[in-house]
């Protein structure tokens, strides 16, 4: 009762105050929303809509020129049971995820480690190692295929001069993917520079303390360096895995140039995967189905599956990286 009595006078004032507070709150929300609007609009237009559209189209036969025709699970059935290229392409893509990503990270980390200790001309060395990352991917692939040309390229001529019979590199199904890994290492400057910044940020006191505790070099790396840079390492792994799952440009250009039939426009689809189907990636098949075979419904089904696989892989990866866990290193 007391409460009721004491609250009674308030009743008069509360209805009067609430609109003021609500208006202020509403205005605050409106301001926040208007600031967020560009991002939300971008997200809706460039992520939610394409995702939704891809899901819908994946259940249709659609060539972009006619209305989509609902075909149920036909595209998914073909994808999982009949497409003769899909398994090979998926395995090639997986190869890049499992080999290319770790190799690039290890090499970038090693170079960053060396550069972080450079005493003389540090700027020059950093520039030299970063520079290849600025070369457009198409140009760097073309240059590499010419450098590694088995007949006329300087690499094999150099190997020949020292008595080694060089491989066919981009023309050999067994060497084409490793050749692209070499290219990937050459252009590792993008992640190397982030590693370098991170390494330079590790407090020196930690190393001194570890040293006083008797930790040797490898132990310092394991117990001081890696935990300290784990957020950056996590970032490199996650972005690397995503990029490898969508690996396209380097493989497509390498196939076109190495096949000796590099061209623009018509005919590019026919060369994808060369030599054999060793460089055929999942996204290349997706591209061919969509833009050369006019099967956007099927290409959408492939895109949906890629999205799901990427999501699962990322969740799996992120759960194993401390920075992404609640209360992790970050």
């Amino acid at each position, binding site marked *: 009762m007391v409460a009721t009595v004491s609250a009674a006078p308030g009743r008069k004032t509360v209805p009067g105050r609430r609109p003021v507070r609500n208006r202020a709150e509403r205005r605050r929300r409106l301001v926040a929303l208007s600031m967020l609007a560009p991002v939300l609009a971008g997200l*809706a237009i460039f992520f*939610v*809509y394409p*995702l*939704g*559209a891809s*899901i*819908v*189209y994946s259940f249709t*036969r*659609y*060539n*972009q*020129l*006619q*209305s*989509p*025709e609902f075909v149920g699970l*036909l*595209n998914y059935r*073909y994808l999982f049971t*009949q*497409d*003769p*290229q899909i398994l090979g392409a998926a395995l090639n893509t997986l190869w890049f995820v499992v080999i290319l990503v770790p190799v690039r990270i290890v090499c970038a980390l090693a170079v960053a480690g060396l550069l972080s200790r450079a005493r003389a001309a540090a700027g020059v060395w950093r520039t030299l190692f970063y520079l290849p990352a600025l070369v457009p991917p198409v140009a760097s692939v073309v240059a590499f295929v010419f450098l590694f*040309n*088995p*007949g*006329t390229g300087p690499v094999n001529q150099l190997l020949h001069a020292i008595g080694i019979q060089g491989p*066919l590199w981009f*023309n*050999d*199904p067994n060497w084409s993917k490793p050749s692209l890994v070499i290219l990937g290492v050459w252009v590792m400057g993008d992640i190397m520079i982030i590693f370098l910044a991170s390494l330079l940020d590790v407090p020196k006191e930690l190393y001194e303390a570890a040293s006083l505790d008797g930790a040797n070099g490898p132990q310092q790396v394991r117990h001081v360096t890696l935990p300290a840079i784990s957020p950056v390492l996590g970032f490199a792994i996650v972005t690397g895995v995503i990029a490898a799952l969508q690996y396209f440009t380097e493989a497509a250009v390498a196939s076109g*140039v*190495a*096949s*000796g*039939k*590099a*061209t*623009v*426009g*018509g005919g590019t*689809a*026919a060369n994808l*995967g*060369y030599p*054999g*189907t060793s460089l055929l990636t999942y996204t290349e098949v997706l591209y*061919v189905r969509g*833009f*050369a*075979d*006019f*099967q956007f419904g*099927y290409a959408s089904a492939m895109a949906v599956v890629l999205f799901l696989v990427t999501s699962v892989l990322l969740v799996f990866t992120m759960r194993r990286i401390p920075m992404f866990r609640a209360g992790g290193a970050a």
Partner: protein
Amino acid sequence: MHHPIARRVATGVTAAAIAALVLAGCTSTGSSTIADKAPDHLKGTVSLWHFFNGNNAKVIASVVKGFEKKYPDVKVSVHQGQDDEKLQKAIAAGQPIDVGISYSTAIVGSFCSSGAFQDLSPYIKRDRINLSDLPTAVRNYTEYQGKRCTLPMLADTSALLYNKKALATAGITEPPKTLDELKADGLKLTTYNADGSIKTLGFNPMIDFYENGAGHWAPMIDGPWLSKDGKSEIGTSDAWKKLIQWQKAYVDEIGYDKLKTFTSGLGQEFSADNAFQKGKVLMEIDGEWRAGYARDQAPDLDYGVAPTPIMTGYGKYGASSITGNVAGIGKGSKHPELAWALLKYLSTNTNAQVQMANGVKNIPTLKSALNSSKLQATSAYQVFIDAAKDPNTKTTPATSDGASYINTFQTWWAEYQQNGGDLDAKLKKLDQDIDNANALAGP
């Protein structure tokens, strides 16, 4: 179910999906009716989208000028360098393209069945266009399932190019006419370095070398592609099987690894380092465009051209494969009569065809142009022209998924040439793969 965020995401995705369906459903098929009589006077601006660039684009521009001269009140707005992908996207997005030119017959199935290019039959009937001036194969590749939505605009044929000096030095007096002769001459012309590697190759049998491929090799055996109901006939064809066996035996005789090593070191096909132009490969199957490249990049090359060699009992000597550029009226055309006039001029005007063929160095697609005295035909170029006129010259059939079945066959063949295996079982699987892909694409 109790997570508001998940519910909101689900709602958003559903909304987007519905929007996508609604938007997709808005695409029209673009049918239109035409006037009973062709307009007496044409006036306005008509757009022309084509893929040509550089000098070839200048040739098209000069032909367009001829059209504008014929119709002084018509202006052509030319959009050059627009490849098939851009053309398709533009039409799908509702761009009012009046006339579009594609470099590939692979789009005919898709563009005709979808209505992306309008049905030309009413115009052809109204204006009494005589299509018998088109070679049969050309007529075939410009329509799909009886629907004519394109007209041809220059074509490509293939033939055997040979290095005259090398053949003479080896004592070969005339180019091979059969596959047996081709192999014998090819092996005779092949020379080796001291370490056993290939120095010069008489003929490169690798199926993925330059213009080698199922399409250009089909005339060797008059090979069938698809049945009338769209099923693959490759795997059950005795002719294809024999050609594949011939090619594999040829590769194995020289050695796959040796050939691969040699081929890997050759220059790009469309560069001055082309292996035939450089004298590293002495005979090759190539298209008529090589004459233009050789003239510009290897003026001292003494070469001859002969019809594609054939397998005795299967192929028809003199015939070739033929494909080419196609042109149509976009479904969103705002000026269909102007578009038709331009298309008609480009495809059925003999002088325009000759002018384009002389400039671009491709094959004209009218019999009258093929026989024209104004056509600048060297003896080498004449072989390709004769191939276009040959009644046995064939094209690859159109499907709604473009050249997918040819690419599947090509990939299959490259794999077989390297790894071999049970040919019958592999051919059966090839047919299955092609049929499955065609079923997925639909009619």
